Structure formats: C-alpha cells, structure tokens
C-alpha cells in the first residue's frame, strides 16, 4: 500500500528499482525507505524479538525503537525504517539478536 494522493505532499517517486527480501525480488521506488517498500510489498513482519522470538513490525518509524532491525547486505541491526532502499541490496529477516561480522 502506498499513499497515492495527498493534500499537501507531491510524490516524485522516480523509476522503479528492485532489491531482494529474503532472496525474493521486490519492487521499490528509490525515494522510499526499505520499510516503506516492504510495507508496499505486503511484508508486515520485519524481525523477531531477541528473547522470546515474537514477530516485530514497523513501530516508531523514526529509527529509535529497535523494532525494525533487519540484516542489510550482511550487516545486522539495520534500522530499515530510516534507511533508503537501493537497487540490488539484500534485505533479510533478523531472527533475534544480530550477529556481527568478524
């Protein structure tokens, strides 16, 4: 779902690009955040809570709450609600605490 008409804002979304969500190709606009693109593609569950592994989705949408942590190009704990989507990036669901690369 995307907002198409807005009383104040004009959307100049640009040309569609694609990126990968759990190895599936997903369409997005380059002006969107990863979370917005996933939302438009129908993805509601972004990750899991670290202890009890309950589903976690978009919550604060301003990069504060740790609810939308995902793995982006192998980097864990990425706040996808404030991270712009780029062509070809690989976004994965993060199961619990992030595993940092050594």
């Amino acid at each position, binding site marked *: 779902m995307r907002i198409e008409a807005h009383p104040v804002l004009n959307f100049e979304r640009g040309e569609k690009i694609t990126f990968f969500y759990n190895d599936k190709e997903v369409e997005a606009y380059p002006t969107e955040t990863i979370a917005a693109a996933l939302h438009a593609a129908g993805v509601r569950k972004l990750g899991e809570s*670290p202890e009890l592994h309950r589903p976690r989705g978009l919550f604060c949408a301003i990069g504060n709450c*740790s609810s939308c942590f995902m793995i982006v190009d192998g*980097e*864990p*704990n990425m706040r996808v609600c404030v991270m712009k989507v780029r062509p070809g990036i690989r976004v994965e669901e993060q199961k*619990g*605490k*992030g*595993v*940092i*690369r*050594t």
Partner: protein
Amino acid sequence: MKNFYDVVIVGGGIIGCSVAFELAKRGRKDVLVIEREYLTSGATGRCGAGIRQQWGSVLNATLAVESTHIFENLEEYTGYDRSCGLNQGGYLLVAYTEKEWAQFQKNLQVQHSVGVDSYAVDLDGIKEIVPHINTEGMLGACFCAKDGHADPFHCTYAYARGAQRMGVDIETYTTVTGFGVENGRISAVETSKGTVKANVVINCTGGYAAQMAALVGDELPITPERHQILITEPVAHIMNPMVMSLHRHFYVQQTPHGSVIMGIGDPTEPVSHNIRSSWQYLEHNAWLVTQTLPAFRSLRVVRQWGGSYDMSPDRNPIINEAADARGFISVAGFSGHGFMVAPRTAILLANHLTGQEDSLDIQRFSVERYETGALLLEPSVV
C-alpha cells in the same frame, strides 16, 4: 532511624552494605547505613563490575580470590532471592610491551602462590580464546577462566537486604553534614534528618572519603578521579572474557545480555568530583578499543556515563582509624578495584571490629604506610 546506634556506616555502596552485613552476621546488629541518595548511586552503580583475581601483589590477589569465592555463592551467602549476575567468562590480560610481559610472568608466580588458576598464552592461544581479536603488537596474554563480572546493583542489594533482615537500618536520601567528637572519640553523626549518636562510624564514601574524614580532622590521601564507560546495543554472543590492556588502558566485556561494555583510563584526568560524560572520551574509546577488537566497529553506542574512582597514592585501599577521633574508621581509596574485593574487605573490617582473628593484618592498610614506606605496591592497575 533511631537517635542512637552502635555503628553508623556512611555510604550505601558495595563497601558500606557489605560491611553492614558482615558486622550484623558477627552480632553487631545495631547498625545504621546512611546513604546520600539511593543504594549504589555512587561509584558502585557506575562501575564496570569486573571481578579479577590476576593481581601482582599477594595482598590484592588474596583479597580478590577470597572475594571471588563469596561472589560465586553470594545469593546463598546473603539469602538473596534473585541472581547477582555473576558471569565467569575469564579475564584476558593482553601484553603490548616487553616490560608488561615480563611483569605478567612475575604476577603469575604471585597468583599461583595464592591459588589463582591463571596461565600465560601465546598469540595462537589468544586467538583460541577470542577468535576475532587483532593480535598485532601483542606479545602474549594471561588468562584466568574464573575471573568475570557480576551485577553491581544486585550484589549491593543482596548485602543490604541480608543486613536488613538481621536488623540493620538503612536510611537513604540522607546527607551527613558533620560529626561529633568527645574526648578524642567519635560520638555522633549530624545528618540532614537530625543527629545520631554512635560508638563507631565507618566512612565508606569512596571519592568523598577525604572530605568526610576532614570533618573529624583526619587527613586521607584519597582523591576522586573521573572514569567513563560506554555500553553498546546488544548483539549475539561473540566474546567470553573481559579483554583488558594495562598498557593501552582499556577493558572490554560482553554482558550475558549481549551488549558490550567498555571503559578506558585517562592518565591526564584531573582530580575532581566531575562525573559528566565527554565526547572526547566517546571518540577515543571507540578508536582505541576497535584497534584491538575490530569486530566491534559496527556496534552502535546506546549509553555512556562517568563515575568516580577513589584514588590512593599506591592505588590500594586505605582502612584507617582517625587519630583524633577514635572509632571513626575510613574504608576507601580502592582506586578502581573496590567492587571486586569488597566481600573480603568487609570481612576483614568486621573481624577487626568484633575482636575476631583474621588471616590478613588490617594494620597494613592504614595510612601509616605512606610514612613508613611500607606501601602496598600493585603493578597491575588500569
């Protein structure tokens, strides 16, 4: 709060609370603990809470070993119904200079003489313990698997609750403003909630110990020094031990929760009660620690804070009775390693105050050592 107590303890940190507990356990139960804010609000609640047995002097190693044994069973020891959070992931002390490496070999002999299970490892051995460490510039390291860290809040509350069950009173948000001295003996404590008479007063106020002692005319060479710590977001478990360098002045550990907690010493830090956070620390700490542990480069810092070390001239605790106010005993000057030796230090003092024998000589901790030159030299302090 009554208006008379046998013993009044000033300071509600790990030292004050453990001393109260040990005194009560030995039958001196008419005890009051006075705390300016809440329990652990001073240095205890701000400390790194490391528990290290790898010391370079017999005295410190003994204090640390015997304290560790108590930390291992602190819940049962104090009757606490929650976990004190002890995590024995070991301490890896890395050596960056020849001098340090040579000192470590001597320290190992000292440690083995008091039963510390520590050993030296080469660079491959370091990699086995912490696979992602950058060993560049290192000569080797010492490791003791029984070192670790505990939760300073729970440990203090374990002692405090145990003491309270035995009859000890704890008065928080109460400021000590002065003392009464009669005929060369301490007689009373003046507080923001009134005057309390006392036979014995124990000064456990860390960085404020010298100011407190000055109120009864006692001079203590203890100065406050700010040390800062930061903690990162939690990530999956990647490191067991506390990694520490005396030469580069840093320590890093990953808590069971997954966040990484680290601190550095700044040799240029001035004497002051300032415990505010600085951006210089944040930048320098991040740079310094990621030299050795580059994997932490991608971690985000969630919190940073400062606290006071109570520094003494030889970086070791002072347990001293004021000359002009007998019965006024200061226990401070732990110089950054008070938490880890608190259990045994409290026993030493409580034994002394209840006329019981102790295998350690409490006189060695008095300020006289700065005149006689019998310093408690410790080669391994950050």
